């Protein structure tokens, strides 16, 4: 009996295929959108996480901030000066800090024979490679001897090396660096491995020299741009940030002009943005599901009116209220269910396409699929009840005499 009713309902739907499809459209789009959006959310989050963890783990950035302009005062540069030695004091300020390096950099023109390329020159120290989990593929990285000696040595990023020296025999050769009409000559001691572009910049397209050399020769100053600290574990990051804050409070009497951000904080912020964005888009998708449900109710009401006579005939032949109710409920459930299945297909397609465009991993979360699909059934049920009850309540004689 039940299967018969399903059969009758499906016959009803297939009798009017175009209209059936159109009335399912809202559900198809709604379910598809929910699945796509959840997939975009998880995919882009994965991308952010992998980009941030590419920086190396447990990192804290210490940079010069800006004092806030308030009460009509113009904001001004911070007055705390970052010296090379300060890195040791910062290290002492927090036991959670495992490594710390000073960092200074500037743009310039790298010249080798006919080739010249604008790129970043970074003054740094040996632990840079530990912090960033970044190894040379050839030669070696800067060591403490180079720092002490203020040696004129340079390590090239993979792409920069490739573009300057088309052959790969560059170790031991020299490269010229030109900045503000001065030219510096460095001896190449290493080429770094190929490294994906991260949030901290394009590792492949920069070069590295000892921080001391950079300050003495290039910057002509004893101030660095900032520091990068690494804690022993990521759950110590907040503690370390607080201690470093305290250090600047004590040392400079002002920590507001120093920006101290842990990787965790960046990650949190990114995740927050991501989550609220997903929530908002998910809400819109859910609304379109509800609108789809109203579309189904509309079409079911039209269908009940159109088929009043059929209902009368069925009742005259012995259909009970329950039979008519179930017939129309199954019809709207079938509408939303088939719409839901098509929507899952659309969601997979949409998520795949956008993951290719956004260049993040294609991840479909099974709970999202299940929830979106069940929600479409619930909606079909909910919005199908009213038309079905209306059909079941029709009086046989009135239904039969309906023109």
């Amino acid at each position, binding site marked *: 009996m039940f299967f*018969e009713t399903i059969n009758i309902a499906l016959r009803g739907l297939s009798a009017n295929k175009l209209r059936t499809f159109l009335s399912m459209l809202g559900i198809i789009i709604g379910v598809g959108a929910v699945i796509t959006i959840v997939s975009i959310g998880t995919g882009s989050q994965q991308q952010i996480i992998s980009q941030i963890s590419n920086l190396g783990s447990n990192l804290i950035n210490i940079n010069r901030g800006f004092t806030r302009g308030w009460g009509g005062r113009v904001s001004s540069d911070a007055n705390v000066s970052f010296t090379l030695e300060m890195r040791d004091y910062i290290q002492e300020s927090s036991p959670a800090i495992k490594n710390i390096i000073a960092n200074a950099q500037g743009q310039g023109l790298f010249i080798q024979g006919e080739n010249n390329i604008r790129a970043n020159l970074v003054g740094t120290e040996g632990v840079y490679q530990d912090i960033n989990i970044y190894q040379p593929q050839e030669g070696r990285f800067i060591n403490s001897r180079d720092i002490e000696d203020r040696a004129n040595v340079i390590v090239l990023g993979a792409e920069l090396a490739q573009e300057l020296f088309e052959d790969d025999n560059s170790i031991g050769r020299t490269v010229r660096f030109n900045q503000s009409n001065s030219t510096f000559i460095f001896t190449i001691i290493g080429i770094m491995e190929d490294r994906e572009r991260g949030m901290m910049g394009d590792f492949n397209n920069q070069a590295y020299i000892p921080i001391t050399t950079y300050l003495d020769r290039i910057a002509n100053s004893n101030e660095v741009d900032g520091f990068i600290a690494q804690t022993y574990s990521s759950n110590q990051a907040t503690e370390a940030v607080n201690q470093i804050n305290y250090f600047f409070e004590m040392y400079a009497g002002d920590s507001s002009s120093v920006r101290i951000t842990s990787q965790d904080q960046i990650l949190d912020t990114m995740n927050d943005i991501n989550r609220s964005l997903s929530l908002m888009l998910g809400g819109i998708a859910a609304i379109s599901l509800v609108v789809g449900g109203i579309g189904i109710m509309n079409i079911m009401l039209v269908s009940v009116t159109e088929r009043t006579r059929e209902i009368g*005939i*069925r009742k*005259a032949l*012995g259909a*009970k209220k329950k039979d008519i109710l179930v017939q129309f409920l199954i019809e709207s459930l079938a509408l939303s269910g088939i719409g839901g299945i098509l929507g899952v297909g659309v969601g997979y397609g949409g998520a795949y396409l956008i993951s290719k465009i956004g260049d993040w991993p294609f991840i479909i979360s099974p709970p999202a699929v299940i929830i979106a699909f069940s929600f479409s059934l619930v909606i079909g049920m909910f919005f199908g009840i009213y038309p079905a009850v209306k059909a079941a309540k029709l*009086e*046989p004689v009135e239904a*039969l005499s309906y023109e």
Partner: protein
Amino acid sequence: MLEVNELRKVYNSGLIEVEALKGVSFRIDDGEMVAIMGPSGSGKSTMMHLLGCLDHPTSGSYLLDGKDVSGFDDNGLAEIRNKKIGFVFQQFNLLAKTSILHNVEVPLIYAGVGRKKRRKIATDVLTKVGLGHRLDHHPNEISGGQKQRVAVARALVNNPSLILADEPTGNLDSKTGDEIMELFHQLNDQGHTIVLVTHSDEIADHADRTIRLLDGELVKG
């Protein structure tokens, strides 16, 4: 056997009240073939709807096989319509979007008969009314006479004791009408009680007796 006592039906559509039946009493025995006649608007269809349990009387009683129908709820009435009564309409009232076979199967579906058995019974009945070769056709692919044969087959399929026909030949030419009447005769010979509404004296002559209505009242004699 069916019996109506002081049956009244008042239609109440907004301001206007129409008393379609004004207290009608009669009885029809099992195996009878009875014609109901009367001018247009005299209450024939109203009477048929009440006899067919498609509508509730305003007052009065209707006993079907000794049981007062007013004692049944909607589900009980649906069951009576399904098992005890077969209805044939002037406008055929077939389901347009399905095959003839499925049309005849519908009462069996609501009676809870399984698919295989259903198919067999419906095929047999359709063969009996001479449409065994048209099972898969849709109603719009057959003639009016054939449609009414399908409707008769559908009315018969649950083997009801009472067959009600409201102007079954009203939409047919006289030759096809006679063929349908022949069919009713056969059914009557097989023991079905038959009540039919007609405007035609010729058709009424087929019946054992005639009940005449005028303005919602029984015409005596």
